[in-house]
């Protein structure tokens, strides 16, 4: 894992916390993501596709921006995220995004999944795997380790706006949390918890029930 963060071209490579910070800078709203899922393919199905990622996608010489642009027909949001991943200079982030790009490409190469993957949240998926997941897990293990593969599949499905086939919301969420390496990593987990806290406070303060406020007895 450490070599994925090694220095390259004499410049600094962002460490795990910096990668997670890049994810949090995308202002991900996890509660909203869970509330708006459409039916998706099964986790095992997606994980199997991940494990079949061909070498040309994993080749670090392949630019992530042209790769994403090619696979996703120049989707501007996805390209913007790919550019941020490129600019991070982090091999792990690049590898993560490339593996995600393979998933969409695989539907043309190997045929569609039982439920085709959504493409409208592609940018979000790239950020989730390139920044969030890659901050805690070596992308190579997504392809070789069953549990990490399942974790990666769940990250792709959640942030792609799809519920794993055969699972309801609460079950999917429970399993997501169980496999979530970021939450288990102490420093990363703390940053993630703070982000969730921030989003929760913003949400509650904006809620109309909170905005009716309490009776005030004197001005302040």
């Amino acid at each position, binding site marked *: 894992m450490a070599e994925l963060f090694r220095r390259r071209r004499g410049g600094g490579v962002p460490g795990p916390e910096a990668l997670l910070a890049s994810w949090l800078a995308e202002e991900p709203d996890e509660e909203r993501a869970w509330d708006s899922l459409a039916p998706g393919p099964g986790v095992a199905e997606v994980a199997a596709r991940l494990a079949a990622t061909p070498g040309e996608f994993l080749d670090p010489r392949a630019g992530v921006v042209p790769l994403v642009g090619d696979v996703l027909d120049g989707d501007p949001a996805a390209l913007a995220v790919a550019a941020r991943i490129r600019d991070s200079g982090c091999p792990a982030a690049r590898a993560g995004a490339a593996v995600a790009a393979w998933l969409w490409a695989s539907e043309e190469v190997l045929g569609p999944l039982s439920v085709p993957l959504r493409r409208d949240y592609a940018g979000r998926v790239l950020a989730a795997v390139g920044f969030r997941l890659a901050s805690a897990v070596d992308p190579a293990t997504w392809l070789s380790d069953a549990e990490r593969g399942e974790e990666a599949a769940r990250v792709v499905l959640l942030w792609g706006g799809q519920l794993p086939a055969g699972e309801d919301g609460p079950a999917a969420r429970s399993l997501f949390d169980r496999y979530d390496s970021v939450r288990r990593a102490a420093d990363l987990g703390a940053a993630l918890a703070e982000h969730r806290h921030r989003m929760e406070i913003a949400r509650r*303060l904006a809620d109309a029930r909170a*905005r*009716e406020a309490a009776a005030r*007895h004197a*001005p302040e």
Partner: protein
Amino acid sequence: MPPSEPAPTGDAGPPGDAVTGGPDDGLGLDEYVPGGAVVLDDAERWPALSAVGRQRLDRVRAHPDAPQWTHAAGDRLTAAGHARAAVPLPTAGWLPGHLATARALPAYRGHPGPLDHLQDFPTIGREDLVRDVSLFVPLDVDLDLMVHGTSSGSTGHALVIPDHLEEVVRGFHLLVSLVEAQGVRWRPDPDRLAVAHVVAQRQAFTYASALPAFGDTVMARLNLAGWPGRAAFLAAHDPQVYTGHPTSLEELLAPDLAPRLHPLAIVSSAMALTAPLRAALHAAYGCPLLDLYGLHETRPIAVSADGGPHVVLDRRLVVEVLGPTGAPVPAGERGEIVVTAGENPLLPLVRYRTGDTGRLVEVGGRPAIADLEGRDPVRFLAADGRLVPSVDLTQQLQAYGARGWTVDQDAAGAVRAVVAGGAADAIGRALVTLLGRPVQVRQVERLADLGPGKPRRYRSEVVTPRPAAGTSG
């Protein structure tokens, strides 16, 4: 927006011109359309409301001279919540636990250096809360008791503040204890409003609210501006205590009101209360007048019952006075008031710069703040090059009876003053003597005639304010 002073319009327009928002009102705001911000039902607003309390509330709401209620707001507390709110938070040994809570806040994660003692903490300011207030909310606190509060401030963006429902009601009990400390017996009276929280502005949230914790009596937030039935309503309900800020409390001097009202006490807050206005209210009502100092984010800090120094309240508070470098000033010297406040569990502040200035003194063995001045301490350039602090002008203006004022110095050095009340000629001579240059003085009748903003305002384009004391870490 919830019922605090509105950020977008402030104290907009003279009281006589108040119009609630609506399609025909070019300055109307949608939130002030009656019911525009109402979401809950009465059962949710007052979980502990009794049948008797319900009847009393309905009677007030339906009174023929009642204002057009624009809002509804309750305490949202169960009986258990009321029981907790009725008890002041213990103060013995509170600070170490407060600092431990603060240490764990996201705002201080990654802070270089120790945060073992109060002085280890950097000072923070309004800009830190505006940027991201959630960084100052503990991760493990019960957010179910959080509601939306706002502070408009004198300039800049409104600040959203996480208010704690039990703390808000504890604030009511604080009012009761402060009034009773003046020798007033303030007990629930079913025939009177317990509190009339008055404003006087173009648009405002107005509502009647039950007080299950105070004998099932009723309070009301009332806009004295543009309300034809105000005298009849207030005479009928004869509020026991009036709360407000100086601009709205000045309305209580109006001839249609003063002879008919019999408050046990008046509490002024949010803005500085001038000596002449204090004297006028005392002459009219002869009751204790409390000047309560505090910010929404800090909660009440100190109180003056006699126009003298504001005595720091016996609550979870530490008050420091710091100089421009952030170091404490020598005893008794003027500096910025910095507060560590532990009354609101949702916002445990440590070394919060208020932007106000004053001197720390002792009154009756307790710390007190003397010569309290509002935000943006301004200095004026005298003709001979001296820098004259605004507090010097305050003393003259008050001495000659001005209840409020604005004093402006333009880039060329010319000084213009608008004063509400007072002896305009004497004021003019005093300011000329202070500044050694001509001063144009115009007099208006009421504080509200000064226009939007606080009733003691200074601005100098010749001299920029000193930066606030200390820096945030």
